[in-house]
């Protein structure tokens, strides 16, 4: 049973920050879609006395393009992302991850801010956002700052957020049309499944060589991670089958998975190779000129 809680629902960011200031010493939680928080309250892991609901703060629910940057309010939901034309054109890997997150009901509630703040190693939106080199706009009553998403996580459920600090927005440079990406995920079942492992990649090919590439994994370490060693290896190389195989080998060395109720350490390690290889091969197959595919 849920314990009864008080409930506040600000409508602007200013009001929100004032409320947080006011209740600074009290036991409160901010409520986004509630798909993680309510579960944790039911399991009595969280026992806040009251909730500050972000869902009426309209400013937090915007998807915008600002000077070649994509700007996503923290309260943007997965369903919103999936239906955004802007994002399906420019950030397909984020859309793909949102399509695989939970179920239609969950996707209507689950927010980007919640998925990031929850800091699960398996949070599905994080690998694509890492691959897009996203940064977070954080704000508390006393300060605001922008941090790279990669430096945000400390461990499972742990972040650099101050107790009174919020994620306001997520932003990343708008990918150019010639960038390509992939998102792959394995779960215990086909839908409504927490990832056993996920991988996202975003790259820019120049004359058949990778000008740059960013690869990120979920559920293979205590936080979502960037696979820098793999990225360094691939930079400047053309993605031949041999190079892809070698990159996949390196990937195994960069991850540090564990065995838990969903999968095993060794399976996750192997899949970090397989999924990366498949992701890269998929890109190459899609990039190949017509007629070259069957070879």
């Amino acid at each position, binding site marked *: 049973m849920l*314990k009864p809680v008080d409930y506040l629902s600000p409508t602007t960011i200013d009001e929100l920050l004032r409320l947080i200031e006011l209740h600074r010493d009290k036991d409160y939680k901010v409520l986004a879609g509630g798909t993680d928080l309510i579960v944790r309250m039911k399991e009595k892991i969280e026992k806040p006395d009251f909730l500050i609901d972000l869902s009426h703060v309209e400013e937090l629910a915007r998807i915008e393009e600002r000077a070649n940057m994509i700007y996503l309010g923290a309260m943007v939901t997965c369903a919103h992302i999936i239906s955004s034309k802007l994002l399906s054109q420019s950030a397909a890997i984020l859309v793909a991850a949102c399509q695989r997150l939970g179920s239609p009901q969950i996707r209507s509630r689950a927010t980007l801010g919640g998925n990031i703040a929850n800091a699960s190693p398996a949070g599905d939106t994080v690998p694509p956002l890492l691959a897009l080199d996203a940064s977070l706009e954080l704000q508390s009553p006393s300060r605001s700052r922008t941090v790279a998403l990669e430096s945000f996580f400390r461990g499972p459920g742990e972040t650099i957020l101050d107790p009174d600090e919020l994620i306001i927005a997520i932003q990343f440079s708008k990918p150019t049309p010639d960038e390509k990406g992939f998102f792959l995920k394995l779960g215990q079942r086909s839908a409504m499944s927490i990832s056993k492992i996920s991988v996202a990649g975003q790259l820019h090919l120049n004359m058949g060589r990778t000008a740059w590439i960013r690869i990120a994994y979920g559920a293979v370490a205590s936080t979502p991670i960037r696979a820098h060693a793999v990225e360094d290896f691939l930079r400047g190389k053309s993605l031949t089958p041999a190079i892809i195989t070698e990159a996949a080998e390196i990937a195994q060395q960069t991850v540090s998975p564990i065995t838990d109720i969903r999968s095993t350490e060794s399976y996750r390690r192997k899949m970090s190779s397989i999924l990366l290889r498949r992701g890269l091969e998929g890109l190459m197959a899609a990039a190949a000129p017509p007629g070259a595919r069957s070879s």
Partner: protein
Amino acid sequence: MSQTRFVGKPIARIDALEKALGKTRFMSDLVFPNMLWGKVLRAAYPHARICRIDTSRSEQLPGVRCVLTHRHVMGLNGFGIVKPDQPVLCHDKVRYVGDAVALVAAETESIAEEALGLIQVDYDPLPVVEDPEEALSEYAPKVHEQGNLLLRTKLQKGDVKQGFTEADVTLEQRYSTQLFEHAFLETEGGIGIYDEESGVITVYCGSQYAFRDQLQIARALDWDPKKIRVCSSPVGGAFGAKDEITIQIYLALLAYYTRCPVKIVLSREESFISHVKRHPMRLDVRLGATKVGELKALDVRILSDTGAYASLGGPVLNLALEGAPGPYRIPHTHLLGRAVYTNNGMSGACRGFGATQSCFAMEITLDMMAEQLRIDPIELRLKNVLRRNDLSAIDHLIFTSVGIEETLKIARDSELWRTRDIRKRDFQPPIFYGVGVASEMQALGLGKGIPDFAGVSIELDRDGSFLLRQGCIEIGQGNLVCFLQMAAEVLQCDIERMRLTHGDTFASPDSGSVTASKSIYLVGNALYLAAKTLLQELERFASETIGEPMRYQECELVGPSRRIPLHELAQTAHSQGRQLKGEGHFVHPTSDKDYGDGLPHCLYSFITQVASVVVDAETGMVKVHDVLSIPDCGRAINPQGVEGQCEGGVVMGMSYALLEKVELQHGRFLTDNFSTYTLPTAADAPLTNKTVIVESMEPTNPFGAKGMAEPPNVAICPAILNAIYDAIGVRIFDIPVTPEKLLAEIERQRKI
């Protein structure tokens, strides 16, 4: 009954619309004035002595109406279908984490929950018995005083030693199965009410057998069973887990002590840890055959982990043994099983009832045998297939209908089977395609020596409609419309002209439990007798009143000079205070043999299932692609219902093969809800899931019906595992075949 109007037609279920609209009120939806909330204090340890229980602080909490412990149980402090070894409220010892130690009733649910936390129980933890093998050692801690062996059963036919010497090929393999959760949607919930004036305790709580609940409650409360009313229908799913008592006795006790309606609805987690599961078993199978594929000898040894209490652990073991040889003639068999107490939760009835486990082991062994002998797997099965009036592999005469041969022939001729090698070419490594087959023989009914009957009465109402009084419950399987279809056939009237009762001990005769795939068969027999008697009664009464010989025909009574509609006759009877009614009572036939403890059975349904899979040999992921189920259920009273059972059973059995497993550690559940215990979704279901029904008319049922609730979730599991082998040449002998397990095995065998 060759020409039928209702039987054999896909008539819509009478409960379909209101269920689709969410209007059905299950027992856990009921609300009464002045209702209190009940809660159950479960054991803090999987195995411990109870030193002291102090409820004083809990009792003092404002809003708490009563706190009950074992001292408040007026009658026998125990329940259990076969032997009542499970305490209603534990007294000196707890044996699994679902054991109940105390009950609370309070004005609100949150007060009741708070009150639970104030009950002080001092325990002295005991070593946890986890391994069923070790449980049998003389040094093992005892779960029960008299030792950890619940039952040992041995069945024999011929001379198994001799049989193996006659065999050219002998295969031997060890198999193991997991603890499996039924995952019904409606957790255990309901309301108890005590009416002081009449002395009647009413318990509204979904279960599979209201009439046995009534007796078990009466025994625990030392109450007259006639003063206990149980309403247990409709049920929001059970799959065997609500055959045993769940919370009914708690409801009755709390209602009695508070004199108020008391409601309990278990949380998913409490439900998960407390109700029975499907038994994990270890099976050692040895099978011998001649070069030409004649099965000669079968030796099966089963070790079944029954958990903390008996419940149906004995009968489940016995059915696993009886089902082990499958639908085949085998001259020499030796089947030995042991069911063992541990602190691993508790196991009991679950769809398939033991046959699930032994069919999985036998059908993979057969597949291996076919490969060894270079015989097509279906041909090998056909060569040995059981026919009516054969002696079974446990040496009893099968005098009832046997349609397994026909199911195998349809499988053999199916597109899915015929194209299996051609379709392999559509897939490129690391993706592989394979097809597998398996068959099963499922015993129906409770078996030799166990009371197994159904009573039904049918009354003519004053408006000329019929009231069918029967006691079986609706559990989601759709039997109610089948009862009406069968009655309508005999009474020659529309289904709309009938009403029926279900699952209410005060409304009808006892029609038996809804278990063992048997309600259509038994109730069908009883209602046939009732309907025939009623028709005679109608004709007699009409002839008396009219003064000429009247015959019943299509809701009219027709004489040489007159015709009266049924509703007029009903009016006449009513005005004279006459209740026109027919009763039928049917007792299940039994086998000529008696092996004790319910063995053997005498009526069987059969199934052959073909499954294709697509295996990703790099990730170990298996997608079940197409499934063809070919059940022999006797006459399919409602073919749509049979298809429904098959489609659902396939998904459940697929998940048993590939996905689900209850994880325990030192007697505690690591998976206790649906976020940790993962169920398949619609997206995981096979792409095609077809049913072709074989109808071997059953001579002991007037409609030719048998049953088809369990088999579809049984053979599908080995069919899928055989398909995986066909795809990648790797066999797994312990389920579920998770990607982790399959990939490790692929790598071990370096097959790919």
